[in-house]
């Protein structure tokens, strides 16, 4: 790895200096002359008919420049796949927090005052806010016309369950018959917010010719463009989206939010309009992680071999499914973990309720499934009196195995991560005190697919520009694209530039998400760089008098120069090579598209916790995280993804919960919705396991989403190890621990389990 020129190195991010000096521009920082500030009026009811909206008093308030309601916007439904969400509620509101009107005014305080002057008359209707109630036959329907919606994967009618998926392998009836022991348990997980620090923001400006410019915190500018063009009824050429830096995403910034409202307010007022969601609005009407109810059943032999497995998940989708690009979530498939089980049957249901619509949140569906599966594995191991590591080890998949649901998986590397984590953490070491616990969990998540293009330009002075429409919501993606191109062309990083470019100036890109950028955008940049290198070599071949047909083999590049391997002293600079072909620059463009991939990634996390049984307080002391990453193009960036994912996972495990009562979020502040502070952050030992071939350039695999998956079960398992109670309902609060301890008798110090490494 030391042989590499630019990859495999923790080079600073290309945007780091802008970010540490306050120069970096995010959407809310966009100030245009005459800009208006907009806010939305939201429903206080989870379900109601809108009888009347009177905006006259708001319109009369000095400083108010435009007020819009559903009658001012097109009567269409939006969605990333299933189209079920209106731009503004028309005759019905389906969750507390749904937008019914919007105001643009000269400042935010005036806009806020105007919201109070909009009179909305509702007829409150009964609401179905409990997912199990919503699933019952004859339940009140959240969407009566579901069957007419576009994007429904299979026709369903008169139900709140808009999607039901099943996956299977073998014959579970046979499998359970073969099992010597059968276990079954239920798990529940809570709604959590992505917690990005930058709230959603949008700005719209309409040119004199009617063309539209949009600034957006959305991480997929090209989708903002196509949706906006469709809504407004303009060709794509008349809508330009200018991406700003994105202040955190974690899946929550992939769907348009207020961009259409900005546009219609701008049209009505004749001025540019900015809309930034408040933190409270983020909680009331963001697109949080789905709460879930998961039932697992496993059949094992007395010696601990898994023979049959059933998983059933219910995901509470809230009032709309619009925020999910695949209608369902990948998580359902993960309900049998990373184990070799001959007979598996899994099913997942996605259900409407009159609550906040849920969306994508870092590894959509996986943290829920992982919590259930990996907690369950420990519960079974405990019952078998087996070490939890050992139980996993004897059942873990190996390369060549099919996935639990029968899919071909490439490069199964789970055992390497297990070994590394166990060795590093000192699994099995004596407890430093009775209420100290250690827990293990494994997880898998595939590298994402999609479409990206990149243009690589070698300028007349030998410096290099990359033009890519990919986005970087903080992951380091743009830096990694530079490193890839720097490696191919052997050009120093400081001579490579990649800028944020608008949708008119870059080729199409599917945007960040699903752990795809390093692979997909990376491949496009890698291939474009190879192409342009070929042209450089061809030009140099003439100058070096190297036979054309062998030039690609005989000529090498280094530090911006080309030379014959046989005569390294005779160098041609990139600048000379460009000029020699009579052009000002050499350029190549590559589109890379991949829709199906068998490559996947693995991780093992080990959590160490200290529990205060009297208060139920859990302190996560240390996480050891071993990740199968293929190759780390930027190790510091990869570690950063892992560390951030872990701390987010700790929040999911013990702190975070969007509490709800009668369908309304009752803790919509960052005071009562608790992200980890610096004082909650555990010590993190990151182990990058390289070597398994990944699909990305230089064999890289993805890393963005997986780190957040195994944390909650690792912590739950460690808590069990510490105090002998098992919490199967996230988050693991002090209150739940104290209650569980009371129910189980006194806080009993757990006997130190004898552990051996497999």
């Amino acid at each position: 790895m030391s042989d590499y020129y630019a990859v495999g190195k923790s080079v600073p991010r290309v945007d780091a200096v802008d970010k540490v000096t306050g120069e970096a521009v995010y959407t809310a920082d966009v100030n245009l002359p005459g800009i208006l500030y907009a806010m939305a009026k939201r429903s206080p009811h989870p379900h109601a008919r809108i009888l009347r909206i009177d905006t006259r008093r708001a319109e009369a308030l000095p400083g108010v420049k435009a007020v819009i309601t559903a009658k001012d916007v097109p009567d269409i439904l939006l969605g990333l796949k299933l189209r079920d969400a209106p731009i503004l509620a028309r005759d019905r509101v389906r969750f507390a927090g749904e937008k019914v009107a919007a105001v643009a005014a000269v400042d935010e305080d005036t806009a806020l005052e105007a919201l109070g002057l909009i009179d909305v008359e509702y007829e409150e209707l009964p609401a179905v806010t409990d997912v199990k109630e919503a699933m019952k036959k004859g339940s009140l329907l959240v969407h009566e016309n579901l069957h007419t919606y576009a994007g429904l994967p299979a026709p369903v009618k008169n139900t709140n369950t808009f999607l039901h998926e099943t996956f299977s392998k073998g014959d579970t009836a046979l499998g359970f018959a073969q099992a010597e022991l059968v276990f079954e348990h239920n798990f529940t997980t809570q709604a959590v917010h992505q917690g990005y620090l930058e709230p959603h923001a949008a700005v719209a400006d309409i040119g004199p010719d009617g063309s539209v410019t949009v600034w957006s915190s959305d991480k997929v500018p090209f989708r903002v463009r196509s949706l906006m063009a469709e809504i407004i009824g303009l060709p794509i050429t008349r809508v330009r989206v200018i991406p700003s830096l994105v202040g955190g995403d974690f899946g929550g910034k992939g769907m348009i939010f207020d961009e259409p409202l900005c546009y219609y307010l701008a049209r009505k007022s004749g001025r540019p309009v900015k809309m930034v969601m408040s933190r409270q609005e983020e909680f009331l009407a963001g697109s949080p992680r789905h709460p879930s109810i998961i039932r697992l059943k496993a059949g094992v032999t007395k010696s601990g071999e898994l023979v049959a497995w059933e998983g059933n998940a219910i995901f509470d989708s809230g009032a709309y499914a619009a925020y999910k690009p695949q209608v369902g979530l990948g998580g359902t498939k993960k309900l049998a973990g990373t184990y070799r089980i001959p007979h598996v049957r899994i099913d997942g249901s996605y259900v409407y309720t009159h609550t906040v619509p849920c969306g994508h949140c870092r590894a959509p569906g996986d943290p829920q499934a992982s919590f259930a599966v990996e907690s369950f594995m420990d519960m079974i191991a405990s019952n078998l009196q087996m070490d939890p590591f050992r139980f996993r080890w004897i059942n873990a998949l190996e390369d060549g195995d099919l996935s639990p649901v029968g899919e071909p998986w490439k490069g199964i590397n789970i055992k390497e991560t297990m070994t590394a984590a166990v060795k590093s953490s000192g699994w099995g070491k004596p407890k430093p005190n009775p209420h100290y616990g250690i827990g293990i969990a494994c997880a898998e998540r595939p590298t994402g697919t999609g479409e990206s293009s990149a243009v690589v330009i070698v300028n007349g002075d030998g410096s290099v520009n990359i033009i890519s429409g990919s986005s970087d919501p903080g992951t380091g993606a743009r830096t990694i694209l530079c490193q890839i191109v720097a490696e191919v062309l052997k050009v120093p990083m400081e001579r490579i530039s990649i800028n944020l470019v608008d949708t008119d100036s870059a080729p199409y890109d599917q945007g960040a998400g699903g752990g795809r950028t390093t692979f997909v955008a990376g491949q496009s940049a890698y291939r474009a760089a190879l192409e342009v290198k070929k042209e450089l070599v061809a030009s140099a071949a003439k100058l070096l008098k190297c036979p054309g047909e062998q030039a690609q083999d005989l000529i090498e590049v280094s530090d911006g120069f080309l030379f014959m391997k046989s005569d390294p002293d005779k160098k041609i600079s990139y600048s000379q090579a460009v000029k020699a072909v009579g052009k000002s620059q050499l350029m190549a463009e590559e589109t890379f598209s991949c829709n199906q991939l068998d490559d996947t990634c693995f991780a093992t996390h080990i959590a160490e916790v200290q529990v205060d049984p009297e208060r139920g307080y859990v302190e996560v002391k240390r996480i050891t995280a071993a990740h199968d990453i293929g190759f780390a193009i930027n190790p510091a960036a990869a570690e950063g993804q892992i560390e951030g994912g872990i701390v987010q996972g700790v929040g999911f495990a013990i702190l975070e919960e969007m509490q709800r009562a009668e369908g309304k979020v009752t803790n919509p502040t960052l005071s009562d919705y608790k992200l980890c502070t610096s004082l909650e952050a555990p010590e993190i030992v990151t182990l990058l396991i390289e070597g398994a071939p990944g699909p990305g350039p230089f064999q890289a695999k993805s890393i963005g989403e997986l780190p957040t998956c195994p944390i909650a079960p690792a912590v739950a398992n460690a808590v069990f190890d510490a105090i002998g109670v098992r919490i199967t309902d996230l988050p693991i609060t002090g209150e739940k621990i104290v209650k569980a301890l009371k129910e189980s008798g006194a806080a009993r110090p757990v006997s130190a389990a004898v552990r051996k490494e497999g």
Partner: protein
Amino acid sequence: MKKIPVTLKVNGESYDLMIAPYRTLLDVLREEIQLTGTKKGCDVGDCGACTVLLNGQPVNSCLVLAATAQDAEIMTIEGLAQKGKLHPLQEAFVKEGAVQCGFCTPGILISLKALLDKNPAPTMEEVKTAMAGNLCRCTGYSKMFKAVESVTSGLGR
């Protein structure tokens, strides 16, 4: 509401402004003086993204009325680098990979600058306590701790 004259001293420069009396320092910095490096993450003192120095002390600028900061020395992230030279904390954040999305970064750097001004060789516990009012969702804080350590190591302890 009648606007009132207010003079703010920000990063050593004086700004004569006419502002509504209820506007916060955060909004005035961002919208009137165009110093948008200070971020609004919650507007109610829960996230720390808006941290600025008020007479050398870190405060949430969303909880300060601009008019009441009339006589104070205010420092924002834009004032941290001196004459184009990055502050050692800025350099360390760049070098250690302590910056991801960057939205919390200005506030955290300001909090840490205040700490190091007062206590050039803090313990890790003191560093964590100084940062506890600044939420970060991307980094898990690890690389930030490392960056601070790289600045303070060699200063005793």
